[in-house]
């Protein structure tokens, strides 16, 4: 990397993004950042720099290098002096955020080690979901070049394995624990530093420290509040087939990956026979098939059916567009119906700079990134300091099944056989 003093031709962070990185305390990699910032910021820079040392930072309007508004619709770290965490650095905001939420707790990116150089990210998560976040991180550091290859998670694991020692991949970012587990199992993941791992609860990361969850999704029971009260939704997944009130009133999406992961969990936790009986019981109950779980949530909100099985965020997406819809979320307790799966990241063992790669993963667990997952993708943040959206319980209040290795949920082959065997078309 060249270290030219004049960097005015650097692309500016777009104005909708929050505060550019401007940590004056550190030397080294951040020097260039600072210089550029000073060069661009002009008189506004003074106020911005002041913000680095005091939690009473000025409003976001004055932060922007160009002096224009930087999206001040609340939720920005600038009014976060009352937020817990005691962070001295303001928290930026990815995307448009959401009104009425307190500033997220946790570690802001500005307190994390700087990123620089080229980092190759193999992302099994779609560009629609994480593109804005990647762009935000890249814009934060003028010396950083994030090269993201998007693809299917399995394709990318297979690609890394096939590339062998000449793989360009530094970080593997996956939609599920299964692909991460596969990479780790093949000894292609480097161990993450303790400082990154400890940000996340033990059950949402690899016991060997080779990958860490970055956001999560809970299996839930969406229901229509005009048809049922919350107490009428069983907290035991095995109680559903026997409850005649659900006859012809429920929906599922058997061809959807998360549903198959849920059935896989049931297979692992309760055995094949119990799973077969449950599936048969639900069929006998007249459960209807949908193409995806967003459609199920819509159908419940419309009163077409009264309850179903879906990932928690589909309910939030429906409510996002229709806040008054008679739709709410229920959970089962400690069984397959309450599986909590994660998207996560690993550092590939052939990474050019494993520390840099691990620090990129660390950024995915920053206050900004976790707030982004909560408010934009409606996922569960995995650090306890950031709250999920809506009326959802916090992650510590959830009761997922104990002793389930999430990476085993990728074993869908026998699950598909089972589904077909009982006559479900997948």
């Amino acid at each position, binding site marked *: 990397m060249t270290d030219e003093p004049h960097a005015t031709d650097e692309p500016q962070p777009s104005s909708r993004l929050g505060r550019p990185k401007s940590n004056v305390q550190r030397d080294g990699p951040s020097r260039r950042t600072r210089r550029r910032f000073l060069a661009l910021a002009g008189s506004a820079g003074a106020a911005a720099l002041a913000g680095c040392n005091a939690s009473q930072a000025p409003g976001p309007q004055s932060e922007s290098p160009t002096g224009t508004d930087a999206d001040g619709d609340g939720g920005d770290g600038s009014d976060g002096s009352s937020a817990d965490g005691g962070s001295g650095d303001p928290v930026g905001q990815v995307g448009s955020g959401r009104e009425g939420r307190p500033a997220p707790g946790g570690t802001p990116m500005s307190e994390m080690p700087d990123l620089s150089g080229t980092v190759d990210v193999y992302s099994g998560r779609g560009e629609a979901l994480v593109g804005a976040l990647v762009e935000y991180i890249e814009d934060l550091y003028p010396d950083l070049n994030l090269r993201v290859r998007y693809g299917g998670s399995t394709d990318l694991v297979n690609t890394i394995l096939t590339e062998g020692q000449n793989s360009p991949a530094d970080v593997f970012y996956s939609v599920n624990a299964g692909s991460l587990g*596969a990479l780790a199992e093949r000894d292609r993941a480097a161990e993450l530093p303790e400082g990154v791992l400890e940000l996340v609860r033990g059950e949402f990361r690899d016991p060997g420290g080779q990958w860490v969850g970055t956001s999560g999704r809970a299996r839930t029971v969406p229901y229509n509040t005009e048809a049922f009260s919350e107490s009428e939704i069983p907290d035991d997944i095995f109680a559903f087939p026997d409850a005649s009130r659900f006859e012809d009133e429920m929906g599922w999406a058997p061809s959807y990956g998360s549903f198959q992961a849920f059935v896989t969990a049931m297979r692992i936790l309760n055995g094949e026979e119990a799973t077969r009986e449950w599936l048969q019981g639900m069929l006998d109950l007249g459960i209807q098939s949908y193409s995806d779980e967003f459609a199920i949530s819509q159908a419940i909100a419309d009163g077409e059916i009264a309850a179903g099985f879906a990932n928690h965020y589909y309910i939030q997406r429906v409510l996002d567009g229709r806040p008054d819809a008679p739709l709410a979320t229920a959970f089962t307790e400690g069984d397959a119906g309450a599986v909590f799966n994660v998207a996560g990241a690993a550092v590939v063992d052939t990474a050019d700079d494993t520390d840099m790669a691990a620090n990129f993963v660390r950024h995915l667990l920053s206050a900004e990134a976790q707030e982004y997952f909560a408010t934009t993708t409606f996922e569960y943040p995995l650090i306890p300091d950031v709250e999920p959206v809506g009326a959802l319980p916090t992650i510590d209040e959830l009761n997922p099944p104990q002793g389930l290795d999430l990476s085993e949920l990728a*074993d869908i082959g026998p699950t598909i056989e089972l589904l077909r065997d009982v006559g479900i078309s997948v």
Partner: protein
Amino acid sequence: MATRSVPAVLRGGEGRELPLGLTLLAGAVAAVVLSPLVWVLASALEASGWLDLVTRPTTVRVFVNSALLVGLVTGASIALGVPMAYLTVRTDLPARRSFTVLLAMPLVIPSYIGAFAFVSAFGPRGELRDLLVPLGIEQLPSIYGLFGATLVLTLYTYPYVYITTRASLKSMDGRLVDAARTLQHTRWEAFKRVTVPQIKPAVAAGSLLTALYTLSDFGTPAIMRFDAFTRVIFVEYNDVLGGGRDLAALLSLQLVAVTFVILAVESRVRGSGVETDRTAKGSTVRLGRWRWPAFGLCAALAALALLVPLAILGLWLVRGGGGIGAESLAFRPSYALNSVGVAAIAAVVAACCALPVAYLSARSDASLAWLIERATYVGYAVPGVVMGLALVFFGARYGGALYKQGLILLPLLIFAYVVRFLPQAVGSTRASFLSVSGTLPEAARTLGRTPTRAFRDVVLPLVAPGVLGGAALVFLTTMKELPATLLLRPPEFKTLVTYIWTAQQSGHYGLAAVPALVLLGVSAVSMLVILYVEGYDVE
């Protein structure tokens, strides 16, 4: 033998003799396109537990399923493609010129988009089901399974048969049919005894492309929930820890083995064809009272294949999507340029590679020439993901820092396209070589031209339309290719199909509609090129 049909007089005096330079060139092309298979073979050998997998009842069952699917789709494509070709070439079908184009157009629609559209339209809670109720259709057979998979694959691959058959009908000597008619043959007898033998090689060549496409297609059986062989490959491939890649490679080799069988069958069929050196239009067949029923049939077919996906894309466009993060997915015209760029390069490279192979195979009936030509078809049957991984392996292994920096990914991607779609160029080019009399270059040589100059000055201009048609077919197929593109594109290199994939994957159907329509539009232009050059030797 492959070229038994060509009377020796047309080939000139070369016969069994293989010109050394040409043979080496064609052999090199075949060797290069077969090279990725080395990795597939090596991986397959590493697969453990393969015997168990290959003999597992499920594997056997899906193998039978695939065979059934290939048989049905190929049969149905012939049943649709040949009559449609006949109607549009030889009869007084109303709106014949429009149908000529419309009936070929389903080929521009990627079968996975077609499958998706049919499920959206006629699946459970389908969008177009309500339209059928006034027609008295309240219950539809399930779109899923063998029926749906056959329907969709037939609708989107029968044009291979239609196009090759049309070209052959246009270039055959129509006066032969008239002659048969004067000998008191009925229309049907004349068709059976005169036309069929002449168009058989073309029908076989088109059916070959249909059959191989059906055999190796991943998307359609998956969307139509039909248990085809590729689904097992996919399940194994996903089971990374269970040795997925290796088992997938092994199963792909089984596809290759089936391909050999199909290739051998096609060789026999096309070998018995009759070729003439004269082409002339026969008289147009009057359909009489069958004119309008035939019109209705063509219209129904075109409507089903084209209007269903267009209607669904239109709905997506109007409704927009229900997904999130749309702002990171803004569509840029550069994606279309990327698509066109790589497809055009692939088409040119494939056309150049096809020339020596096709020329050799058309001019010589030696076994080696036959073998070389058939070898270029093998890559067509290897699933895109497996081909993609094979090239990833070679790139990473021998590409060093160039691979790591992503600099040789585009050449690899284009190579993958050429390996997969070369047969389409070979087929079309070979057919045009066959229609050029071998005596022409010899005449040029007696006038003092060198063999190379004789080829360039005399033969090449005559076969140019066939070469162009083959290139256009490769272009069109490359535009639609998804699995290898996803594996081998450089980071941040986006094409129309990768964009459609990204949008569709995240539920942004509204965003997928525009690039899908652009894709269809660009492909439609290349289809017009194909139709324009067909049967060029008639006019």
